[in-house]
């Protein structure tokens, strides 16, 4: 069976710094895979390659068997990859609802002529867009904030909004860059629940996270990067017993 996402020998460097080297990864639909590693291990660079922000130097990215290496971000998004950022990146001057609506632009044909004539089809499309956007807000529990300006939301809620916006692009693969960063224990538990519910919708999730308990609880597989090089991968149990991993990353942490 072709995996949903496959990378083959993916590499990217900046000047002399090899940020990501030879990463092979497979994710099947409905799985949660975590990428862990010390700071500067190349995790976010890896995400940037997957979402089309960086062009990898060598290697290939296959989505459902289609080569998407070197595609632009909006093309990658249309193929079904969405992401969130470690430092939340909303459209700050837009309302909560608009932040979700913006992600639906790609799904319906937009003819300026229909807009000008204000046809029935145009009005129906605008209406369904709004209804769908409310569904996504409800899914993450933000429906009652729909008309607030997004930058006025509390931090934890902004994270949820970013996830709702990513879901509204109707991805098959969701990349979450440290979704629990800066959250208190209660919020972290809620985030774990939200991620599980997203998986239930049939999405595959690729996760960068430093919160080890979270990673061990929800991941099906783990990939460990160190200085851009994959040093281990497999089920959580295997990975945390791997001596190389313990040496590179977990040496001083023994809390799991």
């Amino acid at each position, binding site marked *: 069976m072709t995996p949903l996402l496959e990378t083959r020998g993916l590499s990217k460097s900046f000047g002399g710094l090899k940020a990501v080297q030879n990463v092979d990864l497979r994710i099947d639909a409905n799985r949660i895979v975590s990428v862990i590693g010390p700071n500067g291990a190349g995790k976010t660079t890896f995400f940037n390659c997957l*979402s*089309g*922000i960086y062009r990898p130097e060598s290697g290939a990215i296959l989505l459902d068997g289609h080569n998407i290496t070197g595609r*632009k*971000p*909006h093309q990658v*998004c*249309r193929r079904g990859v*969405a*992401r969130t950022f470690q430092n939340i*990146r909303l*459209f*700050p*001057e*837009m309302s909560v609802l*608009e932040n979700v*609506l*913006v*992600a*639906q*632009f*790609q799904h*319906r044909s*937009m003819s*300026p002529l229909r*807009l000008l004539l204000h046809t029935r089809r145009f009005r129906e*499309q*605008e209406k369904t*867009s709004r209804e769908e956007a409310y569904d996504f807000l409800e899914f993450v529990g933000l429906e009652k904030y729909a008309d607030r300006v997004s930058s006025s939301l509390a931090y934890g809620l902004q994270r949820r909004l970013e996830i709702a*916006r*990513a879901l*509204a*692009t109707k991805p098959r693969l969701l990349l979450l860059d440290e979704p629990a960063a800066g959250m208190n224990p209660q919020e972290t538990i809620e985030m774990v629940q939200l991620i599980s519910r997203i998986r239930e919708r049939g999405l595959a999730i690729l996760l960068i996270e430093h919160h080890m308990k979270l990673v061990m609880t929800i991941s099906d597989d783990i990939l460990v990067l160190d200085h851009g090089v994959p040093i281990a991968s497999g089920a959580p149990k295997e990975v945390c017993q791997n001596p190389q991993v313990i040496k590179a990353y977990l040496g001083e942490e023994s809390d799991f």
Partner: protein
Amino acid sequence: MTADSTSTLTEILVGGISRGAMYALVALGYTMVYGVLGMINFAHGEIFMIGMFACVYAIGAFSVAWGDHIMLNLTLGIMVAMIFSAAYGYANERIAYRRLRKAHVLAPLTSAIGISTFLQYFIFLTVSKDTVNFPRYYSDYLTNHHINLGSAEVTYLQLTILGLTLVIMTGLFYLINFTRLGIALRATAQDQLMASLVGIPVNRIIAFTFILGSALAAIAGVMFSMYNNVLVFDAGYRVGLKAFTAAILGGIGNIPGAVLGAMILGLTEALTTLNFGSQWDDPATFAVLMLVLMLRPRGLLGERVADKV
């Protein structure tokens, strides 16, 4: 005040608002491009001028082809002008700006000034070195007929300008605030990378911004050439400068601001002409600009720097 002077004042005000409305249509192009790309498109005035010429030559061709049907030919002429200006605006973005989007801010600016000069002399050399008159038969129809507003006279042309501008502003407001295209446009203005990550084809949205702004400038160009009855290859420079000033006055990047700034300029010009003569138009315009910028450096409706941080 006598009845006569009130009617003159009303006429002056209507004249000022009409001029303001034409400036507003041009100012919108400056402010939209700035809002999305953060650059000043100094060639926008030339897009306006190309609209003027396209309309006049189209009307000439139509009257040869099927005779002088005023309304039909004018409407078609405006459409031709919009298409021409939009095509030039699009080509301008594609050729002179797109590749420079990631360069230093001065690079596209310099490119814009170059395009502006190029287009002026392109029209000068290929179309007309002298002023061209708008076909009298058409403009006279609109300037000689009028309705009475109290004792003041408002010409059909002024009514057309005000009506068109009002419809366009309303449409634009609706487009930007309440449609998905408008949301995509605002998203592109706020964060281009993030916009593309949620599937918005950023290049197409930017091209659309140029096309829309250029089409509006073409409408203004046609109205302006009927209003003054003449066209000339450097008309875009002077009107462009005024419209750009209006956009700065209102707060560049802010759409209602551009309209407000344009109206203030139009009225300032009208009142200056009435009291001191038209040679004082420009000094008065820029005195207003300086005064406003001293008090509100970001323009009347521009955000304060503190809001952004």
